[in-house]
């Protein structure tokens, strides 16, 4: 038996012995364990699974042991992941620190920063949030304005960050700030990390058209951050930001893999709310709904095609470039049809007059508007396809 085969065997045994069966089921969004100072569990199994994986260093199986990781090589990492998939193990902890900041720290951080920041991250003791977008810097990140002025051994931060997920429940933030106000836009940006408990940090959750949300706006009012919390070079944040954004894309896809967003099956609703279409208007609506289902079907097939293309080691970049655009727009289109099918029943806001599922549908519908904007708006996606995939010239 090779070493790898042996590792697979041991891992399988360990997982079977240590992953509670209730942690081998699909994970509802409110059963995610986020780590951090205010750690809490909804079940004993959840706590056990968290602690056992933490003690193996397997929150971050491929990080060096010295920083609290599992020290696995890529081959062993792949084995662990495939065994976890096989048993359908839930991820024991979810944390932007691990997914996004960690890899960047490993690449760009000083030894001191790694020793200070990575081990608590690897133990799930700190919940991290991200400070990138600003009210005047959405798609155009380079024009961010939150400033970090040098003052002795510290930076003084002023400004505001927006769309920070769970900003109100996080312990630390990694943020892009402007340290070089006179440099051209990209050149004056730095990456810093800061404790959300620092004096002068204020967090306000943002109400969306769909109601309460996990997004926050974070305000900085003369917040003092020690200079050693600068990651990378002063004014050298842009390449780090790009690295982080790449990790973000990977994290987003991982996130969508493990989370179970409420899915509304158009066909099911058609059958329930329009069981026997008889008038011309109803029949036309039904056919429109079917077109919508067909578009979804074609997209599911395209998703499969992406996987097959990658497995065949062919170029799938063009297909991947359309994926977010198509998915978010199809969701929006589906809700438009659902609204037509359900009439006012799809427009309930609260109260006993509507079923829970109907209210969830309204909520998801209104959230769908954010999906064609957040994470690269449809317009940005179209620009990318036009330029990178089709090779059309820069807009004049």
């Amino acid at each position, binding site marked *: 038996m090779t070493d790898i085969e042996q590792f697979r065997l041991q891992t399988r045994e360990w997982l079977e012995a240590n992953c509670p069966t209730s942690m081998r089921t699909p994970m509802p969004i409110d059963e995610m364990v986020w780590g951090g100072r205010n750690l809490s569990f909804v079940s004993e199994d959840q706590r056990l699974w968290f602690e056992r994986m933490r003690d193996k260093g397997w929150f971050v199986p491929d990080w060096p042991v010295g920083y609290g990781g599992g020290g696995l090589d890529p081959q062993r990492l792949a084995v662990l992941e495939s065994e976890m998939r096989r048993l359908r193990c839930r991820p024991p902890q979810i944390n932007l620190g691990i997914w996004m900041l960690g890899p960047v720290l490993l690449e760009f951080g000083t030894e001191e920063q790694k020793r200070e920041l990575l081990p608590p991250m690897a133990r799930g003791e700190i919940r991290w949030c991200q400070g990138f*977008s600003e*009210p*005047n810097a*959405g*798609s*155009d990140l380079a*024009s961010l304005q939150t400033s970090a002025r040098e003052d002795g051994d510290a930076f003084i931060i002023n400004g505001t960050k*927006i*769309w920070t997920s769970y900003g109100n429940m996080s312990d630390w933030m990694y943020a892009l700030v402007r340290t070089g106000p006179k440099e051209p836009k990209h050149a004056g940006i730095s990456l810093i990390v800061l404790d959300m408990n620092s004096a002068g940090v204020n967090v306000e959750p*943002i*109400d*969306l*058209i*769909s*109601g309460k949300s996990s997004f926050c706006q974070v305000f900085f009012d003369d917040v003092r951050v020690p200079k050693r919390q600068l990651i990378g070079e002063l004014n050298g944040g842009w390449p780090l930001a790009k690295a982080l954004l790449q990790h973000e894309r990977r994290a987003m896809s991982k996130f969508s893999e493990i989370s179970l967003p409420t899915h509304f099956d158009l066909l099911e609703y058609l059958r329930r*709310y*329009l069981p026997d279409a008889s*008038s*011309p*208007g*109803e029949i*036309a*609506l039904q056919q429109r709904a079917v077109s919508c289902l067909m578009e979804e079907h074609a997209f599911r097939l395209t998703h499969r095609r992406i996987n097959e293309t990658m497995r065949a080691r062919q170029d799938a970049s063009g297909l991947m470039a359309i994926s977010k655009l198509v998915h978010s727009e199809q969701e*929006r289109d589906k809700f*438009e049809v659902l*609204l*037509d099918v*359900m*009439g*006012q*029943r799809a*427009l*309930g*806001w*609260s*109260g*006993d*007059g*509507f079923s829970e599922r109907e209210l969830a549908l*309204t909520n998801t519908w*209104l959230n769908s*508007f*954010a999906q*064609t*904007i*957040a994470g690269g*708006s*449809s*317009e940005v996606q*179209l620009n990318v396809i036009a330029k990178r995939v089709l090779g059309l010239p820069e*807009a004049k």
Partner: protein
Amino acid sequence: MGLIYNEEQQQLQDSAREFLAARSPVAEQRRLRDEAVPEGFSLGIWKEMLELGWGGIAAPEQYGGLEFGFQGFGPVFEEIGRHLSSAPLLSSVVLSASLLESMGSEQQREKLIPELINGQRRLALALDEDCRFRPERVGLKARKDGDYYVLDGKKTWVVDGFGADGWLTVARLEDESLAIFLVDATVERVQVDHLNLVDSRNHAALTFDEVRLPAEAKLPGKDALLALETVLDRGTACLAAELLGMSESLFERTVDYLKTRVQFGVPIGSFQALQHRAARLYVDLQLARSAVLAAFECLNDPEASATERSSLVSLAKWKAGEMAHRVSNEAVQMHGGIGVTDELDVGLYLKRIRVVQVQLGDSDYHCERYAATLR
């Protein structure tokens, strides 16, 4: 009138705009929502509207109306839409007073219409039973029992039905014909449930559990379905005007945003893709305005046939609905991240537009109805 507002209509629009901007701006609608005012409107502002004479715009002088003509509601509902204002003008005046005028006894007309016009009384129309608008599919039963009628069944989406003094309730008689009953809110065995929709207005569900009504509660007029159609056409045109007003306001906000919001060093309105999309919205707005004005012109024309009327009213609601749909979706998208926050008014418009699109028939319904006029 014609396809542009005449002088009187223009004056009505100007005064409505001035009044609503001062007394019932979007912020007021936000207040009503945040304070969860169950009626969904402010009684004080409603009284002020009636003092301006809005209740009597179309009503005959003999019942205390101004006899200005139905065309007067066009500019008023446009402005109501523009300011997202909320008032029982549609439910109690346009629908209920009109229905009483055509179906009520002389006694009912003389007593009730003036009260509706001056706000002493507030009625609502209880018609819908299904999630899609189908006025002919009435299941609520009215059974004759001696000198009484017994009503049994359910109504839903009764606009301004919560807190109303009564409901004009459409029911099916034993011979399968339709009849309209004036059900006083004080009557027993009617359960009223508040339905909280995304627009935070007043919508109610009514449950009639063997409700006994005196025979005179049944409006004596003949052919309830025909009367209903005429009255619904009026209401539908008003909703189309409301959609037009909302969309125009939302479009103006969006174009302003395109001019002022800077990304990548330029106003986003200089991006050609957004320019073309905005231009297409403008086109849609203009086509919708023409259709809405034509509907009011027709409603005001005593010589217009029922076919012409339903053709133009359905065209107006269809086109205004399709247009409002596009404008509201694009308004959110073009505002970007901030467009999905509750802080901006864009979301309030979007939600109200969706409700009005559905009320009294959505696009599929009105397309089908227009098609029927082509036969």
